[in-house]
């Protein structure tokens, strides 16, 4: 027993669990906001209005065309500098995940809505449903089902992306691991456990998603 509790694999855990809480918090809150952004910009990308489409396209392409590390630094240092205020690290991280994931989710939303057969809209409209009703009751429920696998995928990506926030000293999982081996010089053990913690979240998610995908296939 002592052999285990004395080992660094074990002693790093309190640090990592604290880090994991922040990692999950940033991921979940960021993705919830990101989903709202994604839905708004996804529909904007489907709009026939050139201006709305244009704004959404600029957003999506700007985010997808720049590294997330640059984005987090831009939000945390760049915006603070510009506005002369300090943004809280956690807030900056949540904003970064939201904006970043929002762009990818916008493409997920656009793709899913676009993939629904045109006949569905025609059938809805032909019984007298309005455009909005058709979207809400006919198109969206079908599109949302198709969005579940790519959204789960985005969850895994965003979760891993939070590790980048260690550069601004957010106490997330990787950062806490670094803190530990900074004190103890036990980098191998600490980083092994950091990776194990990520895998504990990501592997079951991947397995679950594969199951959902198979079910949606039929």
């Amino acid at each position, binding site marked *: 027993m002592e052999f285990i509790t004395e080992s660094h694999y074990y002693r790093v855990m309190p640090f990592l669990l604290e880090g994991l809480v922040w990692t999950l918090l940033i991921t979940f809150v960021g993705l919830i906001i990101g989903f709202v952004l994604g839905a708004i910009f996804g529909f904007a990308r489907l709009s026939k209005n050139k201006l709305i489409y244009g704004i959404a396209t600029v957003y999506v392409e700007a985010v997808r065309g720049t590294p997330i590390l640059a984005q987090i630094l831009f939000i945390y240092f760049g915006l603070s500098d510009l506005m002369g205020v300090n943004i809280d690290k956690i807030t900056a991280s949540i904003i970064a995940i939201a904006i970043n994931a929002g762009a990818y989710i916008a493409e997920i939303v656009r793709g899913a809505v676009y993939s629904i057969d045109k006949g569905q809209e025609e059938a809805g409209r*032909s019984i007298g449903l309005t455009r909005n009703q058709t979207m809400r009751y006919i198109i969206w429920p*079908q599109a949302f089902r198709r969005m579940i696998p790519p959204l789960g995928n985005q969850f895994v990506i965003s979760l891993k992306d939070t590790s980048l926030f260690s550069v601004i000293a957010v106490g997330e999982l990787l950062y806490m691991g670094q803190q530990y081996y900074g004190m103890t010089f036990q980098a191998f053990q600490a980083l092994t456990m950091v990776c194990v913690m990520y895998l504990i979240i990501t592997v079951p998610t991947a397995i679950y998603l594969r199951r959902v995908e198979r079910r949606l296939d039929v």
Partner: protein
Amino acid sequence: MITVKDLHKSFGSNEVLKGINAEIKEKEVVCVIGPSGSGKSTFLRCLNLLEEVTSGDVIIQGDNLTDPKININKIRSRVGMVFQHFNLFPHKTVLENITIGPIKVKGMKKAEAEKVARPLLEKVGLSDKADAYPESLSGGQKQRVAIARSLAMEPSIMLFDEPTSALDPELVGDVLEVMKDLAKEGMTMVVVTHEMGFAREVGDRVLFMDEGVIMEEDLPEKLFGDPQNPRTQEFLSKVL
């Protein structure tokens, strides 16, 4: 009941309808036949504005559909449409497919809408399928549900866009049977079809379309028995 005046429809530079004039009277069953690409489906889709009209007038029970102030949703609820590929809502049960129109468009309560839906399901011979999902139905059953879905809105006109073209041959009969019953009950129907037997037997009038115009129209026995236009003769000699 429906008056179409000099209807033109273009997709980009491609003019699909080149001046259609037609008059469809109440309780009349009009079948539209013609080769593919003749514009017959486009014509039908203009009758409930699933296609925007380029120019001309479509007047349904006094309402001109090309009037920009018209509430098209209201008109569509009076004009039922049945599609070649059924277009049932796959995430809803058969019963929900039928009740969604009455509930969302007419504001009926769920129970009220089901009271409308169940007799319709019986009418199309699918009472036992109320709680099934569309994917478990055969093509013919799907199309009969689609007909019931349209009828639930109590339309005064029904449009059929090649309703049996996507069906296995042995399933065609059931769908035509339902349509025949509707015709007998006095429903005003416009049917784009390749089923010449149906057109001849059930149609009050047959329109032959080709190259974006109505080439010939007549009573079925006359159009099939003694076509006047050489294009009609050529088409019928190929399909009959």
